[in-house]
């Protein structure tokens, strides 16, 4: 099981802040993960519609979409940051 966490409008559109899911073996990178999640339902497809905009963090560190996610404890998906 992998813990997924969502923030801001990604969280609102998916309808939950976090979930534990079993990822298929062929989901190996951040890009694979986004494509897999989009196949799970309209709420995911809506939240992740513009894939390039979505930021990914593995174990609380920023990564690029082509990063390997295999073995990740926690993967976060969120919009570009607007703090400060």
């Amino acid at each position, binding site marked *: 099981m992998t813990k997924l966490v969502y923030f*801001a409008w990604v969280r609102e559109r998916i309808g939950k802040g976090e979930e534990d899911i079993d990822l298929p073996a062929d989901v190996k990178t951040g890009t694979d993960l986004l494509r897999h999640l989009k196949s799970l339902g309209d709420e995911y497809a809506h939240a992740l519609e513009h894939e390039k905009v979505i930021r990914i*963090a593995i174990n*609380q560190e*920023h990564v690029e979409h082509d990063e390997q996610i295999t073995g990740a404890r926690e993967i976060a998906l*969120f919009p*570009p*940051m*607007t*703090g400060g």
Partner: protein
Amino acid sequence: MAGGVSAPVTVRVQADDFDAAAEAARLTEGRADAGAVVSFVGLCRDEGGELSALELEHYPGMAEAEIGRICRIAIERFSLLGVTAIHRVGKIAPGANIVLVVAAAPHRHAAFDGASFVMDYLKTSAPFWKKEHFADGRDGGWVDAKESDDRAREKWA
């Protein structure tokens, strides 16, 4: 020596307000090698009276870690003597404080640059998101990231 035990990094993410003057005083307390302290305070604008509040969401754990990482890079790069960064979360009213960055250095340019560097990276790399609430009850939605903030960060590259 910058980056060692004598260059403390203090990072806090909190709902409560902060006291900028007290934080600046604490950063240089008990030391005489700092010739400059620059404090930056980011406030909530009312956007011409339209805004009733900003709501700040963050990624607990990563937000603190990312700000700490940015502060430590700034200490190395500008030979700072210490950095304090505090970011508020939750609902924030117009006129209230949002973020504080205090940088101490032997000389002013390093302190100015250090504070500016931390803010430019914090805005684009620390996991915080702003949602607007309007005075007339409308939900203003999530604030879009600005290209100007990306450019501000890139100037340090």
